[in-house]
């Protein structure tokens, strides 16, 4: 490894990446049985499955590094909202199909750049999870970009909805690229890139797809932030209430 690793920072960072996958995976799974057409329903369920699978790997590693005997499941089901480290973007309510798709696209374009960079992490456990996840996320990005183009450059109704979706999700994208002390420690140790370093590649993908989708690029905007340090919107509590209900009501229940 490149440098000594601050273990607490490493666990914190692993929870961030794991919680993004978990909360977005849960949000996307809420569509199961409700999507506009069967094929989309199946696609959303599959993506949710990929994300929850990735979350198990990341939170499993977080639990291992933490060394307190906790498991990925315990991290997922027994932490309260203030202990979650996901970006605010991924806890945003699903809204209509356009809003879900726009959120997915803006996240996928970031996710793929992060995973690509992590493939050369100084920690081989991080590198191997990233290599696995990148292959899956490449399909997520192709699909979400495809649908943003189809719906943006679609009917007057679909265009208007995508425009509205972009406007509402955009202020939540800035948080993806904010560097803090945890990110600095990870970059110093060669474990992860600084989030800000991923912005140019993300910006290229987003600009290209929005142009093709005939959607105006929103440009600079105010950034909501806080998720990475546990300050969440009111929406996360409702996600957790549903997601954690079983383990809270019946502690230790297993299949």
């Amino acid at each position, binding site marked *: 490894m490149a440098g000594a690793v601050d273990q607490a920072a490493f666990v914190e960072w692993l929870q961030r990446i794991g919680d993004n996958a978990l909360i977005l995976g849960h949000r996307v799974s809420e569509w199961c049985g409700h999507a506009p057409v069967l094929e989309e329903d*199946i696609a959303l369920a599959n993506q949710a499955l990929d994300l929850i699978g990735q979350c198990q790997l990341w939170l499993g590693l977080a639990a291992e590094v933490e060394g307190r005997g906790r498991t990925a499941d315990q991290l997922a089901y027994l932490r309260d909202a203030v202990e979650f480290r996901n970006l605010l973007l991924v806890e945003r309510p699903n809204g209509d199909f356009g809003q879900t798709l726009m959120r997915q696209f803006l996240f996928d374009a970031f996710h793929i750049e992060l995973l690509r960079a992590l493939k050369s992490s100084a920690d081989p456990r991080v590198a191997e999870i990233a290599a696995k996840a990148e292959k899956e996320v490449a399909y997520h990005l192709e699909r979400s970009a495809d649908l943003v183009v189809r719906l943006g450059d679609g009917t007057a109704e679909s265009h208007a909805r995508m425009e509205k979706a972009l406007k509402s999700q955009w202020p939540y994208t800035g948080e993806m690229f904010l560097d803090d002390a945890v990110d600095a420690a990870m970059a110093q140790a060669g474990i992860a890139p600084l989030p800000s370093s991923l912005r140019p590649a993300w910006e290229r993908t987003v600009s290209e797809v929005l142009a093709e989708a005939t959607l105006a690029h929103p440009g600079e905007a105010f950034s909501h932030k806080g998720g990475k340090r546990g300050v969440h919107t009111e929406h996360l509590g409702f996600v957790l209430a549903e997601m954690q209900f079983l383990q809270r009501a019946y502690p230790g229940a297993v299949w």
Partner: protein
Amino acid sequence: MTAVQPDLSEVWHWLSQVPDPEIPVISLTDLGIIRDLVWEGDTLVVTVTPTYSGCPATSIINLDIETALRGHGIGKLRLERQLSPPWTSDWITAAAREKLRAYGIAPPVDGTAADGRLAGRISRLAGTSNLVIACPRCGSTRTEKISQFGSTPCKASWRCTDCLEPFDYFKCI
């Protein structure tokens, strides 16, 4: 008297008889997910790699491996997960690809995995695709993609515009 340790080639053969729980016409060895078999003393260590991170079949596969090997008299065994190198559909054997086709699933076209690099590919977004997939039923190459995701994480949904049948395509990853 203790039983003689079975030869590893025999164990490989046993595993080649264990069907994939989702696509039972192919076996676990056909899929290329058994990465290694070794004896550690009197314990058989089976190294398995998952296809997709969230594939729900993973735990069933582990259970099936254990059940099969115990059925062949292996008392002590341990399953290990190996993530790297990540599983690729390139590891699906040639014989298995034919079995998939006969079962109605178009086998993967190697070298066409999504790489998430959109530049230059935008033109093929919105449904158009360079990928030529032959219909597993009538053999026609006049086919089109319905969705990048199908009935399991490893498949996409396609349809044939000649015989009009929808079919699964085992996607390249």
